[in-house]
């Protein structure tokens, strides 16, 4: 019998009969209960109840409009849910809890400053004034030689690596990435993946939204497949990618249109 982590409970579990019966939420990770997001009367996230383990790399996949990015934003507290709760390590999503998290966006939001000043900004936000750590981070992402350059004049891949360095500057326990490699060339994608993998190895929980099946295969420990505003399938990456449980997930993996 295939073993999958149970992440879906309550109403959404009804969509995944084979996933039922697996166990309980891991309170050290993230737990969402009855998460709903409505906009203009339309439910964009529908009664999501799930838990993710505290470590490893969780990939959130799904077709456009499935609610992947919205779910990530809800988990990070960037937007408030219409209903439901999110907890990290058993604690409700407060400012203190959110300080242990960082997020990298699809389009890097870089300050109108130098490369070094962008990292300094995040460090100072956490009360760190030591430039040694900044230089180490820039070195880690291969940008130490660009430290004095204006951040916005970097290439797309470099900008995203800088955004990653800035996110890592806060030493997050959880790093969320919303399609950070979309529209980057393969070499840049691999560099980003290397940094993300390294962060995961060092103990940072990664939650990564992507469309890229190859990337999921290279990075993911487990995958959440979103459809129509809720998790539809989930499992260890190798199982999900080789033998998805639902027809919709199979269609998605075979690049067919999923409705």
């Amino acid at each position, binding site marked *: 019998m295939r073993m999958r982590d149970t992440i879906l409970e309550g109403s959404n579990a009804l969509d995944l009969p084979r996933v039922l019966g697996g166990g309980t939420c891991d309170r050290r990770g993230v737990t969402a209960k009855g998460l709903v997001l409505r906009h203009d009367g339309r439910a964009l996230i529908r009664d999501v109840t799930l838990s993710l383990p505290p470590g490893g790399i969780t990939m959130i996949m799904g077709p456009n409009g499935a609610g992947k990015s919205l779910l990530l934003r809800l988990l990070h*507290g960037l937007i408030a849910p219409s209903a439901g709760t999110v907890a990290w390590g058993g604690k409700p999503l407060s400012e203190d809890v959110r300080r242990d998290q960082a997020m990298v966006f699809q389009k890097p939001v870089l300050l109108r400053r130098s490369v070094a000043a962008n990292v300094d900004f995040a460090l100072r936000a956490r009360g760190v004034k030591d430039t040694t750590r900044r230089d180490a981070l820039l070195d880690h992402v291969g940008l130490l030689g660009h430290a004095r350059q204006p951040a916005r004049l970097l290439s797309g891949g470099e900008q995203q690596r800088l955004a990653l360095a800035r996110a890592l500057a806060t030493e997050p326990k959880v790093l969320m990435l919303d399609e950070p490699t979309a529209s980057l060339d393969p070499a840049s994608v691999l560099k980003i993946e290397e940094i993300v993998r390294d962060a995961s190895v060092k103990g940072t929980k990664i939650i990564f939204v992507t469309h890229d099946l190859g990337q999921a295969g290279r990075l993911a420990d487990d995958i959440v497949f979103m459809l129509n505003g809720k998790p539809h399938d989930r499992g260890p990456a190798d199982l999900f990618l080789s033998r998805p449980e639902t027809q919709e997930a199979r269609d998605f993996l075979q690049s067919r249109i999923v409705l």
Partner: protein
Amino acid sequence: MQDFGEAFGLALSLVVSGDADLVEIVALSLRVSLTATGLACLIGLPLGALVAITRFRGRNAVLILFNALMGLPPVVVGLLVYLHLSRAGPFGFLGLLYTPMAMIIAQMILITPIVVALSRQILEDLHAEYADQFRSLVLSRRQQVMALIWDARFSLMTVGLAGFGRAVAEVGAVMIVGGNIDHLTRVMTTAIALETSKGDLALALALGLVLMVIALGVNALVQSLRMTAVRHAYA
């Protein structure tokens, strides 16, 4: 009464020779208007930033108020400041009436709404870009305000310039609260008004020339700084 050609020639010679009276008037004008602009920016930029990043009941009314206050008539401001600083007024004990400080206060009141209203728009646009990042970093309001003002500094220089332009060119408020006293509160605009009414066009024209040069010079400086900033993607 001089003819225009003669007056213009005399004006140029006053400027070129660095006439002591002219220099004194120009220096006081710059001191008053630059101080007023600095103080207005000190108050107006954080206020503009706060309004830009905060949503509260009555926000639209506040925006309308600041936009309306941009058109404050200088003589009305002068009159209000006069009433407050005159002997019978609440701040009469400070003895500030007919001093450069009174003129600074009047100009500051005049241009602070300009700084708030214009900076609010610039900072709100920038905040729309940064909001998610700020929220992700869990920044305090103060941290957000400081970051926005710093990152928009080159755009905000234009706001300061607009304020300075308004301050240095206005005559009504400084005339009322300064009194246009020779060697004490006489600035370029009040001197131009006085000298013109006396028919001494040379000094009036010389001051007018200096005023124009200052306006052009400050504009050119700010524009060149902005261009440099744009080249470095800092604006």
